[in-house]
């Protein structure tokens, strides 16, 4: 049994940012992560982080762009915080050691991004997530933070209506550990692995969200899944929006810049939902190139590509066999980001006292129905920081009025041991592939009731078959077989929440597009969906109001 004041689960940007805030104040924190912190998927973010710095730009403009980008589902009180705290957060990161490219005036260089009315995406070539992750990790080391890495969290515990800690599985030696705490922050990232053809790491299995809904914490707006318009055709690996920010064209098989038809003003720099749908339409109507669209950066020239997009060049060569200096890159939409997540307020608080979430695992909601590029990194640091500050405040008054239920450690251990003993013939790796393909095909860029019901049937079938999963690996040392089996159970649950929410929401808004309900319906659906589990483990939905403070919903065109 371990005991700390704060447990932070997840060591990506949001978790590390919160940890730095707490450690600066000398608070007793432990970071628990299923991978070493620098392996976290924040590091794969490429293009930029938004903040209004230029004298001709304003945070209010960033505020409006984000509200419009969210298709008016984002909570405006939270978006106001996101955008008005953005420049301060970026400068703070810079003072902590993060390096950004410079502009000619000596300030932070910024590039255009989709749905932004001003070039306000700060960058470090095309590896800004990597730079921020390593910069924050360095600060976590500076403040001598305890890190339990390669620990897989299996349960969130509460007592007396308050959080009491977590149970974690030590992957290195197979031992279960209880960690009691007065505050727990989940910064566990998204669920991209629900879909085949995604940009996400293999670790992005929605664990934190699944644990939360099991612990009675509502998940909000889970039907809103972002499909990134430019992912490599063969592997789904991300090609930054920064490529289009630098001036890349999207071409169909006729060599036409087809975005003129879908977003005549913004063209390639329309928001991601708009571009992804345009691409899918072109492909579906027979104007694709082997099921893909072409991203052309040749006209930028070798020098600019090498300076601004070096990672994109290398990824295209290594993973697609295409050198973008000489040839256009074949790309297609791929699952990228979870707008939905654990419902929090703008201080990271959830429905359970002492339990917090921040980053992609959380839904504040600042992204609403569609996140703008460059706003996710911003979300992690703004709300990671705020959660850290709020937790520090909370600890001042938090009493020792909760017990850590030690039987939970035994219970989780028993679950693992039972599964290891199972003589089942189903392989979780194969079930996962079936699920991912079903979700891509039927709960993807375009959605329709009958197809989604088919997906729901498939999920039901997979739930049955999952009861017969067998585990090859019986050992305790680095048993990733059993960890993956539990990750699969998490994505299966998340897939069901997404699908049921998508069937329920009978309108089209942002990334959620229903061919059977193609219009946005503000009179019935300008509201958040909240998913919880009933006593029998069935998913049920409630709704909550959207905070509209400054901008009344308008038609959304680009």
């Amino acid at each position: 049994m371990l005991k700390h004041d704060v447990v932070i689960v997840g060591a990506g940007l949001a978790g590390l940012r919160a940890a730095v805030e707490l450690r600066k104040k000398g608070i007793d924190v432990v970071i628990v992560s299923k991978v070493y912190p620098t392996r976290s998927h924040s590091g794969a973010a490429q293009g930029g982080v938004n903040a209004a710095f230029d004298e001709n730009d304003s945070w209010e403009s960033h505020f409006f762009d984000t509200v419009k980008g969210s298709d008016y589902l984002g909570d405006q009180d939270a978006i106001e915080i996101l955008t008005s705290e953005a420049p301060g957060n970026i400068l703070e990161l810079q003072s902590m050691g993060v390096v950004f490219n410079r502009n000619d005036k000596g300030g932070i260089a910024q590039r255009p991004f989709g749905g932004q009315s001003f070039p306000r995406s700060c960058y470090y070539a095309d590896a800004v997530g990597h730079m921020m992750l390593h910069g924050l990790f360095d600060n976590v080391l500076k403040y001598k933070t305890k890190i339990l890495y390669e620990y897989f969290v299996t349960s969130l515990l509460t007592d007396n209506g308050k959080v009491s800690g977590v149970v974690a599985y030590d992957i290195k030696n197979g031992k279960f550990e209880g960690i009691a705490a007065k505050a727990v922050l989940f910064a566990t990232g998204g669920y991209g692995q629900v879909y085949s053809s995604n940009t996400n790491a293999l670790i992005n299995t929605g664990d934190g969200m699944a644990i939360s809904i099991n612990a009675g914490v509502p998940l909000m707006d889970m039907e809103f899944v972002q499909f990134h318009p430019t992912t490599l055709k063969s592997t789904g690996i991300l090609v930054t929006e920064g490529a289009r920010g630098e001036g890349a064209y999207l071409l169909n098989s006729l060599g036409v810049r087809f975005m003129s038809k879908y977003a005549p003003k913004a063209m390639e720099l329309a928001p991601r939902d708009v571009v992804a749908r345009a691409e899918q339409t072109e492909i579906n109507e027979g104007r694709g190139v082997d099921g893909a669209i072409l991203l052309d950066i040749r006209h930028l020239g070798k020098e600019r590509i090498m300076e601004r997009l070096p990672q994109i060049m290398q990824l295209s060569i290594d993973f697609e066999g295409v050198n973008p200096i000489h040839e256009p890159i074949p790309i297609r939409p791929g699952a990228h980001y979870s707008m939905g997540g654990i419902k929090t307020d703008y201080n990271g608080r959830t429905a359970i006292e002492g339990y917090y979430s921040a980053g992609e695992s959380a839904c504040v909601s600042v992204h609403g129905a569609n996140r703008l590029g460059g706003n996710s990194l911003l979300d992690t640091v703004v709300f990671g920081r705020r959660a850290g500050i709020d937790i520090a405040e909370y600890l001042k008054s938090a009493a020792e009025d909760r017990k850590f239920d030690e039987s939970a450690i035994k219970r989780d251990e028993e679950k693992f041991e039972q599964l290891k003993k199972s003589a089942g013939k189903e392989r979780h790796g194969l079930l996962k592939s079936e699920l991912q393909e079903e979700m891509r095909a039927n709960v993807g860029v375009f959605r329709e009731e009958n197809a989604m019901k088919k997906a729901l049937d498939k999920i039901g079938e997979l739930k049955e078959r999952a009861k017969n999963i067998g585990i090859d690996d019986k050992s305790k040392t680095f048993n990733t077989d059993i960890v993956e089996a539990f990750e699969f159970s998490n994505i299966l649950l998340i897939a069901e929440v997404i699908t049921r929410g998508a069937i329920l929401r009978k309108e089209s808004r942002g990334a959620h597009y229903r061919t059977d309900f193609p219009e946005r319906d503000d009179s019935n659906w300008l509201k958040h969906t909240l998913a919880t589990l009933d006593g029998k483990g069935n998913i049920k939905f409630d709704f909550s109001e959207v905070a509209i403070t400054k901008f009344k919903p308008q038609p959304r065109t680009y």
Partner: protein
Amino acid sequence: MEFKVRAYRFNPETDEKPYYKEYTVEDYPGMTVLNALIKIKSELDGTLSFRRSCRSAICGSCAMKINGITKLACKTQVSLEIDKFGIINVEPLANMPVIRDLIVDQEVFFDKIKAIKPYLLGQREDAAHNIFKTLKEGEKISQPVYDKSEFKNLTGNEDTPNCILCECCYSECGGVVGNKDYLGPAALAKLYRYVEDPRDIDKNGSRLVNGSMPNGFWDCVHCQSCEQFCPKGISPVKSIVKLHEKSIKNSITFSSGSKHVVSIARSIGETGRLDEIKVAFESGGVTGLLNDLPVAFGAGLKGKIPPLRLKLIKDMEDIRLAYKELDLEDKL
């Protein structure tokens, strides 16, 4: 097309020593070695253990030896390996103890990263107004101004901040092979990254002193492996050489490595020749000289005895000019 993967296997719970296991996998165009390992794990043998995460060469999890060479499995194409070797041999990284199969214990590697204090030690004064604030309506924020050139060694795409800590360099490092306490290329590249940071008030101070201690940057054996095997095109050895240069420029020359360099420079500057006895003495002192005696004795037996008095070479004037050009006159 089918191909074979031959994987290093070791489970401390059941195996007395490591062994290799062969798997047959069906290829597809664009398949990477990581794809092959995932296919084996999900379809054939769930016990095969390896680390993996991003699939796109940015997280650094899946570094391993592939056909004897340290690489990231995620960016290694199966077809290229098969063309060259006819098989995919996978083994764990070297220079670190194996926990299981392809998984090594990274604790020491990360301890060495921590040891170089990888963070700004303080802030330059003109950056101090970077205090966080929430902007009110109509309010703007002013930002500190840095000239582009100040970050010129940190913003190139092969500069050290692009390091992903994948341990490829560490696995191939000749310095670590000879001395397990040597900090190694990744940690020293990180040290250089902070030495070069214009915001750090420690510029050329304690970092270079600490890095000059035993196991630091003077212990590099210049084998160039770190540069050769870096999957991100970074050259830690170049960073290490720059750390050498900076130390000497700042007269941080207490280590035998730096004394060695200074002594060679002086010898060439004075005579145009290498005075081996003097260099050995000036680098390591009396103990150094005594340590080198067996080597000297062996060389003597082969008739290779350095002259006790060196004659000036003819073109001394050229050497003086070169030293002047390189701003090294004060080192003479």
